[in-house]
């Protein structure tokens, strides 16, 4: 596996060699910031096209075809358009919070993006409590939605925001518990260590039954966390026109739009990290030749392929299932998902304690 930290260390040494340390750190921070934002935009644009094409294929259609080859430039056209759309300022809104809300959402998802391991040594933030940090930051996003709904001074947005508050706080529990099962298995919260712990084989195989249950719970809860169908109640188009972002126009709406897709990538990324080995290639103990061949495929490809696959499943949900109702949504979480996740955590602990894992 190519270790990306060789490049970063070389770049660091190069800078330190010709300037004081604080200046080197400053430059590195700027470079990384620019890179993260670029990745963010490119990924979000890719995801928009990905979803539009996929949903078209589910629906016997072709999807974007005319703008660029196979419609590849469609999202760029959308981006230019959204950038120059008018930002409408409204009477009766809380102006400061109204404008702040999209930035809160976008910031929280950018920070989460920075935590993901893209490849060996290709990671920006690496805390010893990495996964805990990611969960904490993801909870900030709901604040943005609540603020957006409340500050718009509109009944639809308010209902959307209240729904989203109830929904995201509820589903965070099962999400956290599902991840906790894996942390019990791995014994660490450090993202880098989590990936290396899957060197032998991925957690979903290591933890067998409890890990697979945790994976299913995670995917359901993650779908709800990202407000996607069948749990897209906060923006339920056919009930609340556009839910919490009804009153937003131009690039502020664009932020919600981008964040929605990027959050999809992030939850898929976390799933790939926690269950499918992150950037770690598929290794089967004992098959050394096979493992060597797998190692030839770069880690970043592994990571993206796994994330895109899980996103595909989540997109598949959205375009197939009808939307649930708010009481059904909450009943499902509190009556079924959370007790199940708790039981699964106990099961995992028992498995780990008795060494029943691979």
């Amino acid at each position, binding site marked *: 596996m190519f270790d990306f930290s060789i490049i970063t260390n070389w770049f660091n040494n190069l800078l330190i060699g010709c300037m004081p340390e604080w200046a080197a750190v400053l430059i590195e921070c700027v470079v990384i910031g620019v890179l993260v934002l670029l990745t963010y935009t490119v990924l979000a644009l890719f995801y928009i096209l990905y979803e*539009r094409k996929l949903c*078209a294929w589910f*629906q*016997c*259609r*072709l*999807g*974007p*075809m*005319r*703008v660029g080859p196979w*419609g590849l*430039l*469609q999202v*760029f*056209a*959308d*981006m*230019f*358009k*959204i*950038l*120059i*759309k*008018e*930002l*409408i*300022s409204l*009477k009766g809104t809380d102006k400061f919070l109204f404008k702040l809300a999209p930035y809160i959402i976008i910031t929280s998802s950018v920070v989460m993006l920075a935590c993901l391991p893209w490849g060996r040594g290709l990671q920006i933030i690496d805390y010893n409590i990495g996964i805990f940090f990611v969960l904490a930051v993801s909870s900030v996003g709901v604040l943005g939605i609540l603020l957006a709904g409340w500050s718009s001074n509109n009944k639809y947005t308010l209902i959307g925001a209240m729904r989203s508050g109830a929904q995201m706080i509820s589903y965070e529990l099962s999400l956290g518990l599902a991840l906790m099962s894996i942390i019990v298995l791995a014994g660490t919260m450090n993202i880098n260590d989590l990936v290396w712990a899957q060197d032998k084989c991925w957690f979903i195989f290591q933890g067998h039954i409890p890990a697979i249950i945790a994976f299913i719970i995670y995917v359901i809860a993650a779908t709800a966390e990202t407000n996607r169908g069948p749990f897209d109640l906060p923006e339920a*188009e056919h009930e609340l*026109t*556009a839910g919490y*972002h*009804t*009153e*937003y*126009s*131009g690039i502020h*709406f664009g932020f919600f739009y981008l964040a929605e897709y990027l959050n999809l990538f992030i939850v898929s990324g976390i799933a790939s990290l926690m269950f499918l080995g992150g950037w770690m290639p598929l290794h089967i103990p004992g098959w050394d030749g096979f493992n060597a061949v797998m190692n030839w495929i770069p880690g970043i490809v592994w990571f993206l392929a796994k994330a895109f696959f899980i996103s595909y499943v989540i997109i598949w949900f959205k375009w197939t299932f009808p939307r649930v109702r708010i009481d059904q949504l909450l009943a499902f979480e509190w009556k079924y998902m959370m007790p199940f996740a708790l039981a699964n955590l106990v099961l995992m602990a028992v498995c780990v304690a008795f060494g029943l894992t691979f």
Partner: protein
Amino acid sequence: MAVNIKSMKREDFKDNEYIDALVEELNATGANVAVGKLDQLINWGISNSLWPLCFGTSCCAIEFMCLGAARYDMARFGFEVARNSPRQADYIMVQGTIVHKMAPALVRLYEQLAEPKYVIACGGCAVSGGPFKKSYCVVDGVDKIIPVDVYIPGCPPRPEAMFYGLMQLQRKIKVQKFFGGVNRQQKIQDFFRQHPEDAGEY
């Protein structure tokens, strides 16, 4: 300057002389038509990303649904992201009759659209009142209450006709000028001069 769009060949349009005349007229009056590269880029973006507002009052709305469905698939042109909130939509396609009771709501929807915004009058009723022109409460043509960019006649127009109308709108967008063209600030000030009761907050 010949106006070309990717979706449809220039010689397939039946009214090229109209758009050429429009360009000439605009150039002659000193309003240079989209010459800058940045203008062209932005116009390319707007014209290829026309998001409709879901707004149908009668039969034409069903044909518009067919336009989105598998056979006609307006997603091919990037038109499929129908927004339900007018603030996020680019154009309003008035599909069906507008009656007196609906007129204030339509005007409000138009005002809620974010600039740049366009209006397509789709179907006989929206163009002129159609078969209900003589009725006591029908607005005979939406151009009486909001400015219209493209008219699509028909009762209801076939989805192909709707495509043709949308292509025409794309061509019109290609000749618009973004920088120095639409002066939003000026418009806002004009609005507040007419509606002093709303100006207090700004």
